[in-house]
C-alpha cells in the first residue's frame, strides 16, 4: 500500500491545462494545411497527382479537402512554388462537411451545438464509439482522451458501453460493408435527440480506402453528422478541441 502511494507521488499530476493553456505539440506536427493560391502555378498539377486520396483539386482554383487529407505532406514535397504547407494549428474540427474544403476562405472552426440540444446534452455527453474498419489509430487516440493526461471526464464527456446509455455516436473507420449493419443497429439503438461525430479521414470520406468496393466511403449519407474531426489519425488534442467547441466550452 505504501509503495503504491509512494509511486503515485513519484508519478505526479499529469493532466494538461488545455483549454486554459495552449497544447504542447512536436515541432514537426502537421496541423491545419495552408493553401496559398496566389503562389500556385496554374499550369502545374503536381500536388493533385501526388495526393493519395484525391484531397486536392484544381478544377476551380486550388482547393484542399481536409476530410480526405491524410496529413502525409506528399503534396508539399512535390509543390515547386511553396503554395502548400502545414501549420501547427491543431483546431481542425468543423460542423459542416463543406466547411472542410479549403479554397482560400477563412476556415470556420467548429461552433457550439444548438441551444436546445445543448440544454439537454451540454453538461453530460455520453458517447458510444463504433469502429467500422478503423485501423486502431483513431481508436487509440480516442481512448487516450480518457487517460489522466486529457481527463475527458472533467468536461462531462464519457464513452459508454451501451448505445442505450448514449447521447450520441462517435464513428471511426471507412465503414466496411461488413460493419454497415452493426453500425446502423447501434445508431438506431441510441435514443433521440442524438448527435453523430465522425473522427478521422476514413469516417469522413473513406480516407486511404476511398472508393474501395469493400467500404462505403465513411458515414452513410442518411446518418447526419454533427461534427467532423479530420486527421489520420487526428491528434487527441484536435479531437478534444472539437468536442469542447461543440459543447460551447471554447469560443475563440
Amino acid at each position, binding site marked *: 500500500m505504501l509503495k503504491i502511494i509512494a509511486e503515485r507521488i513519484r*508519478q505526479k499530476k499529469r493532466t494538461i491545462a488545455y483549454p486554459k493553456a495552449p497544447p504542447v505539440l512536436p515541432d514537426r506536427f502537421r496541423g491545419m494545411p495552408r493553401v496559398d493560391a496566389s503562389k500556385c502555378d496554374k499550369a502545374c498539377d503536381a500536388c493533385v497527382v501526388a495526393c493519395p486520396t484525391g484531397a486536392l483539386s484544381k478544377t476551380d482554383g486550388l482547393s484542399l479537402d481536409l476530410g480526405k487529407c491524410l*496529413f502525409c505532406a506528399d503534396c508539399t514535397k512535390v509543390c515547386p512554388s511553396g503554395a502548400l504547407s502545414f501549420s501547427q494549428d491543431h483546431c481542425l474540427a468543423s460542423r459542416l462537411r463543406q466547411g472542410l474544403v479549403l479554397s482560400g476562405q477563412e476556415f470556420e472552426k467548429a461552433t457550439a451545438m444548438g441551444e436546445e440540444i445543448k440544454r439537454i446534452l451540454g453538461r453530460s455527453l455520453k458517447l458510444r*464509439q463504433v469502429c467500422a474498419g478503423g485501423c486502431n489509430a483513431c481508436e487509440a487516440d480516442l481512448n*487516450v482522451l480518457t487517460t489522466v493526461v486529457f481527463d475527458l471526464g472533467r468536461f462531462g464527456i464519457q464513452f459508454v458501453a*451501451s448505445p442505450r446509455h448514449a447521447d450520441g455516436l462517435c464513428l471511426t473507420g471507412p465503414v466496411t460493408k461488413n460493419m454497415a449493419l452493426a453500425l446502423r443497429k447501434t445508431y438506431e439503438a441510441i435514443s433521440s435527440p442524438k448527435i453523430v461525430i465522425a473522427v478521422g479521414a476514413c469516417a469522413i470520406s473513406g480516407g486511404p480506402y476511398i472508393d474501395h468496393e469493400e467500404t462505403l466511403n465513411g458515414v452513410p449519407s442518411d446518418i447526419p453528422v454533427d461534427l467532423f474531426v479530420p486527421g489520420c489519425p487526428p491528434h487527441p488534442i484536435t479531437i478534444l478541441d472539437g468536442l469542447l467547441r461543440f459543447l460551447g466550452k471554447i469560443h475563440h
Partner: protein
Amino acid sequence: MSPTAGLLLFRNCLAMDSQGIPCVGIETFRQCIIDSVKDGGRLCALFYVPEQVIGSPRIIGIVAQDEAGSLGVISAEPGMTFPALTPGCQQAHWFEREIHEQYGVVPEGHPWLKPIRFVNGSDTIGVTDFFKIEGSEVHEVAVGPVHAGIIEPGHFRFQCHGENVYHLEISLGYQHRGVEKAMLAFPEKRRLHYMETLAGDTTVGHATAYAHICEALAQGGFTPPRAMALRGIALELERLANHTGDLGALAGDVGFLPTASFCGRIRGDFLNMTALFCGNRFGRGMVVPGGTGYDADRERLEELLLRLGRAEKDVLGAVELLWETPSVMSRFENTGKLALQTCIDLGIVGPAARASGLHRDVRSDFPSDIYRFNHVPVSALESGDVFARAFIRRLEIQQSIKFIREQAQSLPGNGVKKEIGNPGKGLFVVAMVEGWRGEICHAAFTGSGGELSHYKIIDPSFHNWIGLSLAMRGQQISDFPLCNKSFNLSYCGHDL
C-alpha cells in the same frame, strides 16, 4: 531426411527469380511441408497465386526453421481441389480457410472449412455454422461485433457450462477493407498509406516490411545505415508504446487502477517520442522505401534520450507494482495458459510464443537492417499464462529501451534516404519484421514488366487468434477480457 529437404532455401528481404520457386506434385508438396514442420519448422505463409503471377496457378508454402535461421519455399499446382494439409499440419488450418475463401480452391479433408473474413457477397458476415456443444446445461454466449469499449469489431462465441468456457470461437472479417487487392488495383502512391493503416498500431512494423519489399525488388543494395538505425528506433518505440499500453490495460482488467492510470499516460509519452521524429504519434511518414522520411539531428536525439530516461523510470515503477500486489498476481497467474506444445503445433508468434517458452523472434532468427548489426536478446518465460504474457512485455520494454539508447548515442553516417530504382522483373521476395505483436510477413511478386503482380500480407494476429481461443478453454468466462488483453491481437491486421 533433412528438415529442409525439397524446399528452396532463401533469405529474408532478398529477392529471387520467381521462376526458381520449385514446383512439385501436390502430394510431394503436402508431404514436404508436413515433414519439415514436424522437424521443427514453422509455416510462415501458405497462399495461392493465380495463373498470371508465375505462369500457372500455384499454392506456395514458406517454412521457417527458426533455430537454424533458414527460410524455405516450395510450390505446387493444386487444381481446384487438393488434399488439405491441416490434418497433418495444424498450422495450415487458417491459411487453407483463407485460400478457400479467396479463390474457391477446396482443401479436401479440412475439418472446419468456412470463411475467415466473409468477403464474398454470398456470405453474410456472422452467419455460419458455429461450433456448438449440446447439453441441457450448456449455454452459448455471443459477444460483438460491437464491443463494450473503444475497440475494433469482431464476434466471439463461447460454449459455456455455468461460468466455465469449453470453447471459444472467434469469427472475424468486420474490418475487411480489401488491402491486398488494392495494392495492385489502386495507384502506387496509395501503397505506403495502406501499409501505415493496415494495423494503425503497427504503422512502423508494416511500413518497414513494405519498405524492405520495395528495396529488395529494386535490388539496389543497402539502405543508408543511418536510416536503418532510425527505423530500428521507430520500431522499438512502437513496441514500447504498445507493451506499456497493454500492461496498463491488463492492470485495468483486474481492477488495479494505479498501474492502469500510470501506463495509460506513459504509453502516450512513447508515442510522443515517435512524433518527435516525424510529427505523428503513430510514425506515419517515418519509414519510406529507401530509408526514412525524416532525419534526426543531435539536439533531437538528446531530447529523445532525456525523455527515454524519464519514461523508463516511470514505466518500470508503474509496472513493478503489479508483481508486488497479491490481488493482481492471483488473477494473472495460471489464467489463460497456453502450453508450449500448443504454441509449437499452431505456429504461435511474438510475445505470446515467448511467454510459453519458445525462443522465437525475427530480430534474432532472421535479422534484417539494423538487427543484423545490433542483436536484441530474446526474452522467454515458461508458464504461458497471463502473468507470463505480461512479464514478457516488461522484459522486452527494458531491452527496447536499451536498444534505442545505444542507437541514439551512436547514430551512424549521413543521409537517411536513397532513391531506389524500378523493381526488377519476375522477382519474388519475402520480408519479415518482428512487430510488437510478433512476426509480420509480407510476400511480393513482380511481373514481366517489373510491375507488382501479387502482394500477400500476414499480420502476427493471423497466427495468434486461435491461440486466444485455446487459452480460454477451461477458463471462467469472466477471464476473457484479461486473456484477450494479454494477447491484444489486431482485427484489421487479420481482416486486411
